[in-house]
């Protein structure tokens, strides 16, 4: 039995210590926003925050977490950087299939929390662990810059759904 601090609350889960956090979230708790992509920390789809740091939950045994605070995609919008990133993701309309985007947003939110004005190199370093097979990278870069500066970085202006 492990007591976990997740998304501002606490709950107990009865799972083996070696079970990766990813499957505790998805199968034991029912938070399915965090995704399974590779199982070996190669693709970043499973990225969550542990005390604000972006980590790959598919290789993190639940028994090693202790009392560190877990934040998932379902709650990252309550953090200042997560809120900015999610808004920029919408404004730039980053998503395609969307499957990797939970992980992309978690990595980007952690970047912005620690580096409010990231350079291209900062973005490369923070985001190169997240694969997107749809190839949304150009807009991911634009959205991170837009979230940081508030200035429109888009290649074309995208209107919200109710605009017309």
């Amino acid at each position, binding site marked *: 039995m492990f007591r976990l601090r997740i998304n501002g609350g606490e709950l107990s889960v009865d*799972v*083996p210590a070696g*079970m*990766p956090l990813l*499957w505790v979230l*998805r*199968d034991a708790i*029912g938070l*399915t*926003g*965090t*995704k*399974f*992509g*590779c*199982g*070996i920390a*190669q*693709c970043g789809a499973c990225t969550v925050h542990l005390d604000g740091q972006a980590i790959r939950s598919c290789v993190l045994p639940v028994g090693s977490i202790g009392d560190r605070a877990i934040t*998932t*995609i*379902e709650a990252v919008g309550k953090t200042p950087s997560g809120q900015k990133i*999610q808004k920029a*993701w*919408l404004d730039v*309309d*980053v*998503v*395609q*299939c*969307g*499957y*990797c*985007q939970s992980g992309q947003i978690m990595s980007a939110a952690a970047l912005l929390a620690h580096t409010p004005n990231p350079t291209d190199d900062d*973005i*490369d370093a923070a*985001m*190169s*662990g*997240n*694969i*997107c*097979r*749809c*190839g*949304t*990278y*150009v*807009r*991911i870069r634009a959205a991170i810059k837009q979230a940081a500066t508030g200035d429109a970085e888009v*290649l*074309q*202006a*995208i*209107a*919200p*759904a*109710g*605009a*017309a």
Partner: protein
Amino acid sequence: MIPGHAPAARSTPVDSDRRNALKLAGLSIAFLWTGTSGTASAAMNARRQSSDPATAAADGNPPFAPNAFIRIDTDGSVRLVMPSVEMGQGIYTGACMMLAEELGVGLDQIKVEHSPPNDQLYASPFLGGQITGGSTSTRGQWQVLREAGAVARTLLISVAAQRWHVDPSACSVARGVVSHPGSGRTLTFAALAKSAGALPMPGKVELKDPKAFTLIGKPLQRVDSADKIKGATQFGIDVRLPGMKVATVRACPTFGGKLVAVADEGARAIAGVIDVVRLDNAVAVVGENFWAAKQGLEALEIHWDHGNNADLTTAKLRAALAEKLSNGTSIIAREDGKRPAGGKSIEAVYQLPLLAHAPMEPLNTTVWVTADKCEIWVGSQVPTRCVAEAAKITGLPQEKIVLHNQYLGGGFGRRLETDSVEQAVNIAKQLKYPVKVIWTREEDIRQDIVRPMYHDRISAVLDAAGRPVWFGDRITGGTVLGRWAPMAMGKNGLDDDLVECAEKTPYEFANVKVEWIRHDMPDGLLIGWWRGVGPTHNLFVVESFMDELAHAAGKDPLEYRRALLQQNSRSLALLNLAADKIGWNSAALPPRVGRGIALGEPFGSRICVIVEAEVTAQGEVRLRRAVAALDCGIAINPSSIEAQVQGGLIFGLSAALYSGITIKEGAIEQSNFHNYRNLRINEVPLIEVHRVESAQPPGGLGEVGTAIAAPALGNAIFAATGVRLRSLPVDRRLLVQNAEALRRTVI
């Protein structure tokens, strides 16, 4: 895949005989085939609705549902049912824009629903079944969805005009409200829906003049973005049911191999493992959760019969293809004129590898089989095919198979297959509870139905001025269509997809011969659709070779192409636009930096891409810039178009730089993203997309960027290094600065 165009529409009256009109207009119907329901040439229709009361009840009995796409509920809320599936390509947004434009609602006023499996209501006009693929969705739906919206609008206006005793043509609709500007009166959809639902279908409806479009042509935010950024979208893998267990599976890694025996004591001893299920060629372990199932799978001792492919290797597959290229009998796709005697003869052999799809969401299916029902939750590009296969496996009639389609975490052609669904039904059939079967990434790659490999001999004869007076392409490879839809094979057994973009190029050639030598893979090694299919393969060969011809003629690759495009103004304009945007004739580039052009006309669109790349002394390729010039006809959503071209290019560049499936001992050697690499954000430059305005009908877009990527890269590498790459993926050993010395020792 399908070179077809719907006729242009300018406030065109459309009648119910539209399909005949389309045929007369020359729409390609080569792909119309007998759907899985057994009904020939099913196709969606702006006026057809299910007549089944149970279906209507399940749908909430909306008072106004004039066709299979539009439901207006008593409270006036608008639900739009999507005929295609959403796998990232943005078709939900595009389809909503086409429907909403004519219906008269904003995208923020609608709710989007997945369609149930039904060929009669949702079959693609191009593909004859409820299939999302071949970059056909927008092309196939452009007329019918606008017409469907116009049918609904016409009926709603009729009711309002009758109530007001005014001429319907004096009424208009916007944002869910019908108004009569002359008198200032308005009525909401809620007030009109019930009466509109009682009216007979209108015979003719008027489509909007494109100049009056308020949605189409605008870069609107996707309808699925808001949930996707919150992790709230349900993909197939996210399905959770009461009492559901989770399974993971291992099939025989050798193509066509079988299960002999399995010792499962170790697996059953693991906490959380519930069952071990044996199939003909696989074993599944069922657990309380995925982790338990995976631990159990790894604890199995499995004995396989590796079968006839146990010693198959990539080298053997290549040798067989090369032999067939030399000695096989071909099917002629096109032959115009003869190869002239004399002139400068140039010939090259190009090779393309097997490729895996690796969508970010590994394949998965949730199934619950009971005595009289089989319920399936899956994200599939072919929902009706899934139903048909499940019926065969369970022995239940098709109406007892209930399939709930889901958002797809990438498709790329992999989810045009039903193998993983069939497997899940076979597993669930042995269990008394619902089970979600999730493939590991390793299983997803090793059990992929891979893109075919090809060996092509391409040739040309140049006249004294360096112009090609002969173009010959001898394509050798296996057919996807021949397995997937054999009834759609063309004349003399030709696979039209396999020769697309070789059989017809943008250029003028006086004499042409394009032929295909069919070479089937060994039994058990299945080949499948992969983003861009025929054009992705042929454009690499043809556009790389065009560069070879320019080089042989001593001409600039841009000027060389220009000279051959004098009768093709649409493609010439794109070539010039891309060259202008990248500054083709600007200052000299640094050493070992080069630019490569590729031009093509795939999927009813036209695109020119110029890639600028640097090759390091160690042979690493660094992308510096890419510029695309695009003519895709009328643009539905310019934002989606830009995203599809950028993403498609990245998908194609990933494959060209890194991807190749190789075979050893009859099995795929690659297993996960560490050895099946993809481009990451640090390797991707800015990709500019410049679109020319056009009034032509929409072209396809989902695969266009992918199809044009590899030749632009290969030509850039040649410009940077002088090394012509005639096989993919890029072999860095050939690109190190002292490549000649290395070639003697390594290759």
